[in-house]
């Protein structure tokens, strides 16, 4: 059996849903970040899959480039996000997102 694009996309969707689960269900700030990273990885997987399955491969390889830039941006996001978690912890003495509700209207 050779995997088709559909299979890849379904795996990617599963990965995305697991990331979403992590971001929505866990009450710890770091889990939210982990979930977001997983969702981004699922998106990157889609980029690469679409590049690979394109009938005429592009020159330059657009999907690969997008994936590379996406990885760089998610790395930056992870750095800033984790720094914010540290700051929030230092400030509120907690990383529980239920208690971080200063934005409550």
């Amino acid at each position: 059996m050779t995997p088709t694009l559909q299979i890849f996309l379904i795996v990617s969707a599963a990965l995305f849903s697991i990331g979403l689960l992590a971001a929505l269900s866990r009450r710890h700030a770091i889990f939210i970040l982990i979930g977001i990273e997983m969702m981004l990885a699922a998106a990157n997987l889609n980029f690469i899959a679409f590049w690979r399955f394109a009938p005429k491969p592009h020159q330059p390889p657009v999907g690969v480039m997008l994936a590379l830039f996406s990885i760089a941006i998610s790395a930056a996001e992870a750095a800033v996000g984790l720094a914010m978690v540290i700051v929030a912890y230092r400030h509120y003495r907690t990383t529980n997102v239920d208690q971080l509700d200063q934005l409550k209207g």
Partner: protein
Amino acid sequence: MNSGIITNLWLIPAVPCAASLAILSLSNARRKSAAVLAVIGQVFALGMSIFAFLPTLQTNSFRAVQNFTWFTFGDQALRLGFVLDPLAAAMLVMISLVGLCIFIFSIGYMAGDKNFVRFFAYLSFFSGAMLGLVLANSLLLLFIFWELVGLASYLLIGFWIERPSAAAAAKKAFITTRIGDMGFFLGMLWLYKRSGTLLFYDGGSGCLESAGLATLRASATFIALLIFCGAMGKSGQFPLHVWLPDAMEGPTPVSALIHAATMVAAGVFLVARVYPLFSLGGINGVTSSLTVVVWIGVTTALMAALIAIAQADIKRILAYSTVSQLGLMMVSLGVGGVAAGIMHLLAHGFFKALLFLGSGSVIHGCQGEHDIRKMGGLRRLMPVTFVTYAVGMMALSGVPFFFSGAWTKEEILRATEHWPRSHAPYFLMLAGVVLTALYMTRQIIYVFFGNSRVASERAHESPRVMTMPLIALAVCAIFFSVVLTPAWPWLHAYLRGEPAQFDVARLIQPMVFVSLVLVGAGIGLGIWVYRKAGAQDRQRSAEIDPLEYAQPALFRFLANKMWIDELYGRTVITFSWAAARLSDWMDRYFWDGLVRGFGAVGRVFAMLTTSVDEHGINAGVDETTAGTRGLGRLMSKAHSGQIQTYLAALAVGMLALLLLYAWLG
């Protein structure tokens, strides 16, 4: 040098005015600096005036004009300027010289006054304004200085503001002259409308030059008469003369300045300056406007001379004599003797200043007493004052040969004699000469002869700072006659722009004898009538005037100034009072009612709009805000502050989009 003085003519009025400002900035204690500043300003003005006078001697009919543009509106430029001609130059020298004497006299006279500094500031300002008036080459500029002179006179007449009578006199002077000035202003506007320029001389296109005059023709009479209204106010001509005797409320040097050099001379000067307007289109020099001038002058001269006979206040007598002399000058101008009129104005400036300063010296010696009936015997106590006063008196009366007033008076009489329209002014003027001699003799006898009475017992001669100007002016009054003699009518020729010729034969003329006889009659009559007045009891004041004894009704009529003030009080002032009351009533009930009515309408309208506003617009706005706020409250409930809620919302939104996509196909 000539052109230098002409381009710098403006300095002559500017320096005394600047001195005035400088003095105003001094503190009240800096008396000496104030006096020095004022005298320096005046000396400078005198020096400049003499420098300005010199070039006018060199050619006949010298005239130099310095015009400049004040401001431009649209394509019209309003131009002002200064002019230097024999008329202006002679006036300049007289004003600054007499002014200087008065300034120096004031240092002594005002020595005890607490507002000494302010007095000198006003005095300098007065002098500067008058010098500017003389130099003006534009009716507008002349009017500006004219009003400045009026303001200065107001300030000085009311100098002793703590006295209600002084304040009233200042107000009276200001308002009375203002009535005349309104005519002047209207005349000026009319002139500008017709000729398009207010410059007197402007290289042929000025309003006094042939081109400008040609545009006037028929309206010239009315313009001239309107301008004459201003001159009447300023020069105290009947019926606007009432302010002048009241102006005696000011300090005596101010009276001297007003009566001799500055204020009243302005009216005569104005008529002489715009004389071409008066004489336009005349036959033999007779025009309707000049006829009016003659009759006003005659009325004023006689009336004032008559009133002067019955006055008891030393300064009031002089004031009425000024009014009378001004009338004489107006007559002279009216009959065509412009040069004679101006000569008399100049001569009068000297001897009237002398008389006023002399009276100031007398008042100073008698501790402020003004009533001549309480004086007497001052001849021995105040010899310098007596001699100089006598000189002034003889000049005023017109004693021939040695006193300046005589020659000019004869010139005027001669001019009047040949007036083609009527001989009445001539004979009336002759009567005026007799009356002048009479009231001056009366005054001299009361003040200087006989026994000392209440006020003169402790009298003393004035300090030198006061007697020196008296002597200087007396010398001027005598020596001025040299340039006035008919044998060498230099000043006459100078003013008329003709070369003067020397001719001794003209010294002896019929007019001289007429004059001699009349003056002799006047003085003789005076001595005879008042011979006993001087010899009355030393303790009792001379309550009963000999004239009053003989003609009580006439005397009361004259002593009360012919009841002209009362007449004005009953008519003009009552009318104006009634008009004011009417206006007040109208204002209170009619206009106020109207205003209130409009106010009520406005208020009703406002109520209407308020209710619309409150119930319509405001309610709508309120509803909107309430709705917005409620929505905001509702929305803010959704903001839990929980990141995961937001994330869940995002996910649900994505799902919804997916379902939408699926549903759409």
